[in-house]
């Protein structure tokens, strides 16, 4: 193998698995260390700069970081990264004086944002400090988009959402709420310098062809529409017996909301096997905790009505059969099941809809009626129109919307300045020594086994009575500290310097997880078989040195490195050193200088 190029900003970035997995690349270990140090405000600001909604995401994020967490490879469960983010939000001081404050000197450019969700708000935050005049259009009465309409208040209290939405709106954004944009042409006619579309995925899928669907239509609701009407208090009750169709997070929100507005016998019914449900495991667990059974392998056959009144639904049981390639087929078993219901919530996916975009504006759409976009720049075929969030490349999640918002903001800024949108700014990186004493590091290097701490929940008797009562209570400070200490500090990198190495093997002998080997070089597949311990995790890189005096190379398998620093402590010549790698995706506007805060 060729020697690893650690100058490549992505090499060490990839070692910080949580940050690499995060669509917005939030520097996770950095803020977790700050939480452990009791610096909640600083931890919050790092998050705010990177993901704009730390309080919201600390409660509702899909957490792509957690399955990536290295702790999960040596212990059962990863660090509770998401809930630690919430700790930063819960315990921070007043930060309003630190945030960028308008009015900002105008740069003479006007931008329209269609939709007031996470993607649009991110664009607004990134561009407002640069002097753009920003007009935000949304049909809802307040900003937040799906965070307000689809995420129930018992998971995300309104105050938390309002606070973080207002940090942005207070930057001098011109909001036009309760304004439904019905024509793209009208917007374009207003001669904005650029238009950003962040209208989400507002169209919930229906079972409109299923027999009986239109016999008692008032008792059958589309999940996301129903959640929105509960959120905006147009609906405050539901029948006692409720069926929720679907196995995603929306289905979980629907069933739990139904339990709070009158549903006593609420059941979730899914076509797929339980272990293939799309909902996050923790959301499934929370639903089950609220006495909601989940029936899997049930394929809906018909809505059953009697004298125009909904009685329930008929399902056929199916069995999942997998072919050689692991592809799934649902085979009916012949058994039919009737489940009684007063009302049914259909939460079987959602999609984008652009009936309001005229097709003669130079904006091209693909075969799925989605806008044709460049996935990096998020620019459409009409150069002054950009997309982001669920509206762009299909429904994902809040953190992806934020990440796309940042990228779209960069594109818009480049476009408005007449520059090439493909010329993206490189990330900000910094590698800093951590040596403090002979064998002391600035970071807490000791690694001890400690199982993941559970976030306490409020009493079910209280939460089921009040739709707005938050279920999760968040970590208290002691638990937060302990959970933060579980972080392995993967951003503190093991940096190897060949000229200093005397090949004494001290690092090989002391490494608790047998990551380091000195072997003759070879191709990667061959090298992976000749190391001290097997290196079977192919998505984890091998860090390879140049050839050493004994004609061997140092090979480090990054997979289960605990970043404990023992290799550097046992190295007599400091050929190994622990250095903290900070990687920050560049935003359109520097919100502040990192060193001023931390």
């Amino acid at each position, binding site marked *: 193998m060729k020697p690893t190029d650690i100058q490549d900003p992505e090499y060490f970035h990839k070692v910080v698995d949580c940050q690499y997995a995060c669509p917005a690349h939030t520097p996770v270990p950095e803020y977790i260390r700050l939480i452990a140090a009791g610096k909640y405000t600083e931890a919050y600001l790092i998050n705010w700069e990177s993901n704009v909604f730390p309080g919201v995401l600390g409660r509702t994020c899909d957490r792509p970081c957690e399955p990536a967490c290295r702790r999960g*490879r*040596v*212990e059962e469960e990863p660090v509770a990264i998401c809930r630690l983010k919430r700790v930063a939000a819960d315990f921070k001081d007043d930060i309003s004086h630190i945030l960028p404050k308008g009015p900002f000197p105008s740069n003479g450019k006007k931008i329209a944002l269609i939709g007031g969700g996470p993607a649009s708000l991110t664009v607004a935050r990134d561009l407002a400090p640069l002097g753009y005049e920003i007009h935000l259009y949304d049909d809802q009465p307040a900003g937040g988009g799906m965070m307000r309409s689809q995420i129930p208040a018992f998971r995300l209290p309104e105050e938390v959402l309002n606070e973080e939405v207002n940090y942005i709106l207070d930057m001098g954004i011109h909001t036009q709420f309760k304004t439904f944009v019905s024509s793209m042409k009208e917007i374009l006619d207003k001669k904005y310098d650029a238009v950003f579309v962040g209208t989400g995925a507002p169209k919930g899928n229906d079972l409109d062809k299923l027999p009986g669907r239109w016999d008692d239509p008032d008792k059958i609701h589309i999940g996301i529409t129903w959640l929105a009407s509960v959120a905006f208090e147009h609906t405050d009750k539901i029948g006692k017996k409720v069926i929720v169709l679907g196995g995603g997070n929306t289905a979980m929100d629907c069933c739990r909301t139904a339990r709070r507005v009158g549903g006593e016998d609420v059941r979730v019914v899914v076509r797929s096997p339980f272990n293939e449900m799309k909902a996050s495991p923790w959301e499934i667990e929370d639903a089950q905790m609220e006495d909601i059974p989940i029936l899997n392998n049930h394929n809906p056959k018909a809505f059953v009505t009697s004298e125009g009144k909904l009685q329930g639904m008929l399902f056929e049981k199916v069995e999942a059969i997998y072919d050689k390639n692991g592809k799934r087929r649902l085979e009916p078993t012949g058994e039919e099941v009737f489940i009684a219901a007063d009302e049914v919530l259909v939460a079987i996916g959602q999609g984008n809809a652009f009936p309001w975009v005229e097709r003669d504006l130079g904006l091209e759409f693909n075969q799925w009626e989605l806008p044709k976009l460049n996935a990096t720049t998020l620019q459409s075929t009409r150069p002054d129109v950009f997309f982001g969030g669920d509206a762009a490349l299909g429904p994902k999640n809040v953190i992806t919307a934020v990440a796309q918002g940042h990228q779209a903001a960069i594109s818009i800024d480049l476009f408005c300045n007449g520059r090439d949108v493909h010329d993206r700014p490189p990330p900000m990186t910094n590698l800093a020594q951590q040596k403090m004493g*002979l*064998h*002391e590091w600035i970071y807490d*290097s*000791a*690694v*001890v*086994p400690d199982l993941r701490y559970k976030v306490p929940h409020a009493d079910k008797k209280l939460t089921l009575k009040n739709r707005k009562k938050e279920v999760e209570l968040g970590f208290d400070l002691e638990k937060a500290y302990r959970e933060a200490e579980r972080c392995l500090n993967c951003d503190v990198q093991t940096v190897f310097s060949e000229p200093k190495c*005397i*090949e*004494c*093997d*001290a690092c*090989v*002998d*002391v490494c*608790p*997880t*047998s*990551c380091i080997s000195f072997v003759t070089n070879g191709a990667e597949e061959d090298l992976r078989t000749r190391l001290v*311990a*097997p290196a*079977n995790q192919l998505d984890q890189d091998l860090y390879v040195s140049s050839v050493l*005096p*004994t004609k061997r190379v140092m090979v480090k398998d990054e997979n*289960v490195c*605990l970043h*404990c*620093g*023992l290799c550097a*402590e*046992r*190295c*007599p*010549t400091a050929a190994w050193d622990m250095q903290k790698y900070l990687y920050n995706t560049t935003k359109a506007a520097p919100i502040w200088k990192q060193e001023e805060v931390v």
Partner: protein
Amino acid sequence: MTYLRPTFRHPELPTNILGFTRKDYEGAISTLCAGCGHDSISGAIVQACWEMSIEPHKVAKLSGIGCSSKTPTYFLSNAHGFNTVHGRMPSVATGANMANRSLTYLGVSGDGDSASIGMGQFVHAIRRNLNVVYILMNNGCYGLTKGQDSATADVGSKSKSGSENKFATIDLASLAIELGATFVARSFSGDKEQLVPLIKAALAHGGFAFLDVVSPCVTFNNNFGSTKSYSYVREHNHAASNIDFVPPAETISVNYPENTARELELHGGNKIVLHKLPTEWDPLDRISALNRLHQARRTGEIVTGLLFIEPESQDLHATLDTVQEPLNQLQEKDLCPGSKKLEQINKSYR
């Protein structure tokens, strides 16, 4: 300084036939200097015992005094251990071995412990062919007392302060061969590929197995001009024959070209294969091995590998015709066999 070693290990560590991973053969975290050659030797011992599937609790580790003699704490935590008086490890090992021959004996000593204060003990253990692996961690200096030259320092070798050693060196490997040792090898702490099979062969050898391992002292004897530094040993290392250790359960899988390899049977069905046979001497011939070592001393080479072996060696128990069972397992009827037996014995003297 953190003396805390995480308890997590690689989740896919291989297991040996006992079902143990290397973790089961580890000891406490080393308190020796960072980069000490001794730690590598500890690592090689762990590796060798794991590969041979030796049950850790059936090993007795014995040592004297010095940096080297601290190392038994850093491997095989589950083995028996005895840290003796300076230079007296061979006596204690002899006593222990006589009392219980069912354990594997692993003696660890240093150049001060063996070539100075314990020299008398060392030579007599050889003479008796005590069944023990005797690993000498040889750094040519007294590392625990600020690095004064030891008796194994080469003439002209420079200390860290720049002074040259003026006294003749004691080469313990030559001495061991001279005194009739039945297994003598030399290796280098920085070459585990050679060291691990040598330790395995030594463990399988039925008699006194002496391993002189050059082990640089990073703090006091790793300087320019020292003949026991990492770079000097690497430059002057003349790795003679590499060996493969083959336990009884395995067959020799590699075919060596004719006349370049030699297979030797050890006790208990173990085999070793010497490949790349040395051309300058015959490791089964005591005189040629001694000649080679003398020659090397003249040219400044460090000859490593298996220097001499007498596979059919007769250890102390065989010489003394002792009882098989460990003494603490002998019952009253074994120890007091009764008046009839006494009569018999008395008769034999008449």
